[in-house]
């Protein structure tokens, strides 16, 4: 068919993983280029001169950057297994919650991960408040997309993968199944989905990576 798809990613990027999931759901073939963040390729810097980051999807030589922009692009070009809802209101809601996930939920979870004692208690309260919104969005639904995985599930993919890793390292529980039953169930349903579970980055490598990222923040406490 003459379609050429390349994905620039790193082994661990949760944003690149969104694109991996979307391409898998759409059953699309593509070439993967793994980047080393400390030694970025000339191609990556040419394709994403503004942010110099992954993911970048290159379709027939034309680059698309920013994971949520890439998801919409993929959904518009390849109509099978739609990611976004058809209804404009539901679409707007999906976009809103995906942005909320990136702008508020992720930073609040990160704050919990890198803070200590009283700061951490406050960060936990903040994160829990944000997670409660997600819990509410799952009322009556198996996935954020309804019966099947969609845009918002993919956008929240990091919740299903990364949170338990951060919980293990920081030795705390953020998504307690008693307080967040729907979110906990979603995390299992999403992770168990065949399209998803094949793509997770190796857990031991992730634990090692995030432990190292946390160290500078922990060392300061005597």
């Amino acid at each position: 068919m003459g379609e050429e798809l390349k994905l620039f990613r790193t082994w661990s990027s949760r944003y690149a993983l969104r694109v991996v999931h979307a391409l898998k759901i759409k059953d699309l073939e593509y070439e993967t280029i793994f980047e080393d963040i400390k030694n970025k390729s000339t191609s990556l810097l040419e394709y994403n001169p503004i942010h110099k980051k992954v993911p970048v999807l290159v379709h027939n030589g034309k680059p698309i950057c920013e994971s949520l922009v890439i998801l919409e692009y993929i959904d518009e070009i390849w109509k099978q297994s739609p990611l976004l809802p058809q209804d404009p209101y539901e679409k707007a809601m999906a976009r809103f919650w995906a942005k909320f996930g990136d702008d508020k939920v992720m930073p609040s979870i990160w704050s919990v991960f890198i803070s200590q004692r009283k700061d951490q208690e406050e960060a936990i309260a903040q994160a829990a408040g944000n997670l409660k919104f997600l819990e509410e969005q799952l009322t009556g639904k198996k996935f954020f997309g309804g019966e099947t995985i969609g845009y918002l599930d993919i956008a929240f993919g990091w919740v299903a993968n990364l949170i338990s890793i951060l919980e293990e390292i920081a030795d705390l529980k953020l998504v307690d199944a008693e307080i967040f039953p729907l979110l906990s169930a979603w995390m299992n349903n999403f992770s168990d989905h065949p399209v998803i579970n094949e793509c997770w980055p190796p857990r031991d490598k992730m634990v090692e990576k995030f432990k190292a990222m946390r160290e500078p923040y922990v060392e300061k406490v005597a």
Partner: protein
Amino acid sequence: MAADEVKVLGSWSSPFVLRARIALNIKCVEYEFLEETFVSKSDLLLKSNPVYKKFPVFIHGGRPICESLIIVQYVDEVWASGPAILPSDPYDRANARFWATYIDDKWHPSVRAILMADGEEAKKAAALEEANKGLALLEDTFRKCSKGQKFFGGDKIGYLDIALGGFLVWVRVIQILRNVSLIDESKTPNLLKWAQHFSDDAAVKDVLPETQRLLEFAKFYVAKVKATGNN
């Protein structure tokens, strides 16, 4: 509320609210504008936007939608028979979305930092450098998108025009208030011409705030924000 009733909650001064109103004007959609103030927020606003408690809030047939760029896309999709706001080509759409996100996530914070740097020259200079870098990129993007025509969207206003245009009067006000140059003949000649075309457009001119009125408001706004320690 009737199934097709449209309300916009917001302030005349907000660049984000302006985006929603311009989109509605392009589509010739009638709506009720419910003026909010920064001092106290209405119950309707707080109920409709429990997550951020901010405006704009767009309510269609009783259902609220928040975040200005999401509202603009919604308006484009619902009133599809009106002039298109997003480009029709998926790659151009991705490009427009990329730059609109850049404007909100990278460029706007630096512009706001200039506004808030009242008397702090080093902070102002650093923010100005960032803002001007962004404008140089947007000048370049304009040249590529407009293909010699008046707007980012070509011969008529589109998504990226709305995304950047919402900030236009604030840019003018900040230039006056902080004695800086952002959009000008030497650095961004195309954006300067674009600014005039945008301001004159039928969908824009009646909702664009008056520069003098916004200037007075800006002084009040900066003082209020600093007083609450909420930079």
